[in-house]
């Protein structure tokens, strides 16, 4: 018999509707896996077993009465960056180790209305600043494919949890690659929607012009099902875009014949490992067999995306994180001698080393005398990069390349060298700077570790991206691979 955790979200959803199993059975099954496997993985910070069983019970009642939402009874894990009313919301930081959110993030509210059952909150890099999940106050997350390796970051807990079959979906956020890179390193489908597609209300801010919420799932079809209920205009987020949400599921089966795929020349140069490059080329051959046309394109300013990001993102972070002052919520130091001492020690002790590094980087690039040289210049280069993408999309429907230059690396291997760590995101940052939707799908493995293919589309082309990813997943079985010990 197929185990419940071998089923995709779409299959679970269908089974719930056909009453082959109940939501309570599902919740119990996944909670038992979490209890057994999470102590090793450290993928979850909080497990909400009691609330989950109550929500599952309600979902079963709604399913019985025929009034259930589209995802009623489906278990889900939220990244601990999303505010959840009455539940600890830490953002992976000592600063918020005692913070019980007083309201739900819009996406938490929307998905609850759709009937999902939250099992818990996922570990993450502190304030989503990291590419390996090693900056978390709650300790590193292990990659279920190899416990010595990182799962990627910042959504490392979300990725490890879904890869280990602790839930069929986890929410995640992507500021510079934090959904796609962990998806690649753990063999999942990770979707970062267009900036403004999904509400940021109640999502703890890192870099507000880059942050976007998305999903980690097994398949593109699963991502389509969840995005359909997550996306949409929200008056509480001033950058939310008021444009209709298409039926992503209905668009999945469009034929790919005649699809124009742009190969990003810059992505195949530099630090890309040959074993990864080979798998990407094999994936492209699958698309050629499906009738797609491959066209090489060049984005000459793309190599400047990492330095641009490491000015823009820290600048926004230094501003956003100024709200953590030890007064209204969050960590406060012991015995402050005056108000400035309270601010400085609460922040100095409450934030970890990488968060402090980014706040200081941002403070410096925004300070008098340096603003033009760093921040304004980076905002100009950001436009050059965005214009490069726009020109490419006049020629092609989607762009493809690797998600990450290497498969998962060893825990501890890059923590002491921030620049090496930052370069993990060399292929993912461009889409954030330009606000574009992008996803990563598994396309093979090197030495037992998964490799991801990245697909980038024009603004609001999520339906096309999911269609293109689904076409590949109909031809391949990489998305069905389960790490050893987690079957």
């Amino acid at each position, binding site marked *: 018999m197929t185990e419940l955790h071998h089923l995709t979200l779409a299959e679970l959803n269908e089974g719930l509707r056909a009453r082959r199993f109940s939501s309570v059975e599902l919740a119990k099954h996944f909670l038992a896996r979490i209890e057994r496997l999470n102590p090793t993985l450290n993928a979850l910070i909080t497990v909400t077993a009691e609330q989950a069983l109550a929500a599952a019970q309600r979902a079963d009642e709604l399913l019985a009465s025929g009034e259930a939402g589209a995802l009623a009874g489906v278990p889900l894990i939220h990244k601990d960056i999303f505010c959840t009313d009455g539940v600890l919301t830490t953002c992976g930081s000592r600063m918020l180790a005692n913070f019980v959110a007083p309201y739900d993030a819009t996406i938490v509210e929307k998905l609850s209305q759709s009937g999902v059952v939250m099992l818990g909150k996922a570990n993450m890099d502190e304030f989503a600043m990291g590419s390996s999940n090693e900056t978390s106050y709650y300790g590193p997350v292990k990659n279920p494919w190899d416990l010595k390796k990182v799962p990627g970051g910042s959504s490392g807990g979300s990725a490890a949890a879904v890869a280990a079959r602790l839930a069929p979906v986890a929410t995640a956020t992507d500021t510079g690659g934090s959904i796609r890179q962990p998806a690649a390193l753990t063999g999942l489908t990770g979707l970062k929607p267009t900036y403004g597609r999904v509400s940021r209300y109640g999502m703890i801010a890192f870099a507000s012009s880059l942050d976007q919420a998305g999903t980690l799932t097994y398949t593109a079809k699963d991502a389509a099902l969840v995005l359909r209920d997550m996306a949409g205009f929200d008056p509480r987020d001033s950058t939310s875009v008021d444009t209709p949400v298409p039926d992503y599921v209905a668009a999945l089966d469009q034929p790919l014949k005649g699809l124009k795929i742009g190969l990003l020349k810059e992505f195949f140069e530099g630090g890309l490992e040959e074993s990864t490059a080979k798998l990407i080329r094999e994936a492209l051959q699958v698309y050629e067999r499906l009738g797609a046309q491959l066209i090489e394109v060049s984005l000459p300013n793309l190599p400047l995306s990492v330095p641009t990001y490491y000015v823009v993102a820290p600048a926004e972070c230094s501003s956003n994180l100024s709200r953590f002052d030890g007064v*209204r919520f969050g960590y406060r130091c012991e015995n402050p001698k005056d108000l400035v001492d309270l601010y400085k020690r609460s922040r100095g002790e409450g934030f970890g080393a990488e968060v402090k590094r980014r706040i200081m980087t941002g403070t410096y690039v925004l300070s008098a005398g340096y603003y033009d040289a760093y921040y304004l210049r980076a905002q100009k280069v950001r436009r050059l990069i965005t214009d490069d993408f726009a020109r490419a999309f006049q020629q092609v429907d989607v762009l493809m390349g690797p998600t990450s230059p290497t498969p998962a690396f060893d825990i501890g291997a890059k923590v002491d060298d921030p620049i090496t760590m930052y370069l993990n995101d060399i292929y993912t940052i461009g889409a954030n700077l330009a606000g574009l939707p992008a996803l990563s799908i598994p396309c093979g493995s090197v030495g037992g570790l998964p490799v991801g293919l990245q697909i980038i589309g024009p603004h609001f082309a999520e339906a096309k991206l999911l269609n293109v990813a689904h076409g590949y997943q109909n031809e391949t079985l990489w998305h069905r691979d389960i790490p050893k010990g987690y079957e």
Partner: protein
Amino acid sequence: MSLTDHDVKNIAHLARLALTEEQVPVYVDSLSKIFDFVAQLNAADTASVEPMAHPLADQVQRMRPDEVLDSDQHGKYQRNAPRVEADLYLVPKVIE
């Protein structure tokens, strides 16, 4: 570029971050490397380029009418405060 201990202490002060003496040289080293790294941006020709503040180039952030939409939640919000007395957030004395 090479930052000094003094530069890092000044940045930390502006950012209201207390650093230990041991942390200062670590940040001198890593921040110097980061500013060297981002100096690559100087190679780009940006003479006639408008800075881009919003990723959807032509989006204008919406305004909304200034209306009260929420009910009073201060009791709930203050449960997260480190110190509260008589509905007020407590901080060390500011005015002598």
